[in-house]
């Protein structure tokens, strides 16, 4: 059964796009049929795969073109619905529509994928609400600083409001990103998150300059730096803690129920 994941945090610069790209590519490499959808007018998903920005979402929602024509196959098992500044027009169109909160849910309902990943913009608008309503599982990437962690609380509040309208989520996870285990502030915020959200906290992604380089080369982490600490996590004795590979495992557990 298809699972829809939304990557959301109203705070910008917390690693939503990198996380969505890396996990989508990881799923595809495991032969999970995956669709990645760019809900952000910045259109950075296309750039992450070395493509030009294009109005994929605009064509899907405003021009009523079928998903099969709008999606771009970026690699085996991985398709992409791109976005660009025309995504702003999508928001206006949705605002004027009937049943406006469920437009994305309706468009994705019959898609033949195992996993759909929605990369959300750092905002709280009608497209954001559409993404949260379409999602079965919400992944909330966050830096471990007070402002970003506040963004986590905001998303959870919005999810709670959506739940009151009758939508139910299978779950949510908080993903600490840009993790620097040597600082005291990281420890304090990490302890706080773990105490408050217990098993909703996924293993963190270590801070790693390779991530920034990866985006600049239009590659994914799997191609550019598969052995970097952001991918592999911290080595503690014999075990690896955190990193995208481990998080991919957690995501597979969600997909397999």
């Amino acid at each position, binding site marked *: 059964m298809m699972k829809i994941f939304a990557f959301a945090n109203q705070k910008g610069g917390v690693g939503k796009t990198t996380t969505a790209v890396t996990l989508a590519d990881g799923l595809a490499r495991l032969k999970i049929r995956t669709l990645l959808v760019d809900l952000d007018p910045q259109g950075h998903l296309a750039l992450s795969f070395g493509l030009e920005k294009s109005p994929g979402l605009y064509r899907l929602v405003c021009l009523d073109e079928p998903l099969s024509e709008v999606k771009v196959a970026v690699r085996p098992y991985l398709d992409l619905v791109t976005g660009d500044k025309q995504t702003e027009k999508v928001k206006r169109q949705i605002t004027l529509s009937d049943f406006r909160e469920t437009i994305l849910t309706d468009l994705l309902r019959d898609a033949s994928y195992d996993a759909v990943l929605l990369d959300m913009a750092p905002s709280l608008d009608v497209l954001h609400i559409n993404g949260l309503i379409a999602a079965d599982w919400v992944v909330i990437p966050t830096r471990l600083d007070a402002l970003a962690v506040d963004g986590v609380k905001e998303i959870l509040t919005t999810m709670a409001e959506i739940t009151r309208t009758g939508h139910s989520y299978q779950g949510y996870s908080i993903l600490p990103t840009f993790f620097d*285990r040597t600082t*005291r502030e*990281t*420890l304090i915020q*990490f*302890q706080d998150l*773990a105490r408050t959200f*217990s*098993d909703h*906290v*996924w*293993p*963190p992604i270590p801070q790693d300059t390779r991530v920034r380089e990866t985006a600049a080369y239009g590659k994914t982490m799997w191609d550019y730096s598969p052995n970097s600490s952001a991918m592999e*996590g*911290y080595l*503690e*004795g*014999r*075990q690896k*803690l*955190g990193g995208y590979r*481990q998080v991919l495992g*957690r995501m597979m557990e969600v997909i397999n129920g």
Partner: protein
Amino acid sequence: MAERKLERRAALDPAVADLLSGMQQRQTESQLPRKERERLTKERAKIQSRRDLRATYDLPPNLRESIRVLAEELRLPASQLVTLALARFMNEYNNGQIDLGKYKQPSRSPRYDWNLIFPEDLIHVKKKK
């Protein structure tokens, strides 16, 4: 009224718990006097260096007991006896002196093709008189 059953909250993700406890330990250590910190760092390095030497295998209990008894009798570390036994086995196997064929039985596990089924007397090591 029936007593309400209380449920504990689910535990942390194991990787999160391990990472958190490591960070807390480092934080505590950072507040210790310098000498104490150096001692702990040395100890950790020693444990770390021994980790690559560790291996876990399932052994029949009586075989494990025989190794323990012999190691005590000879006043040797059991690990060194096992190293000697395994090294000799590997050499003999590589020289074609050991045939596993007679112990092989098809396995029903999806992970392995074969199991080795040993006769009782092979596992029950007889003590040298």
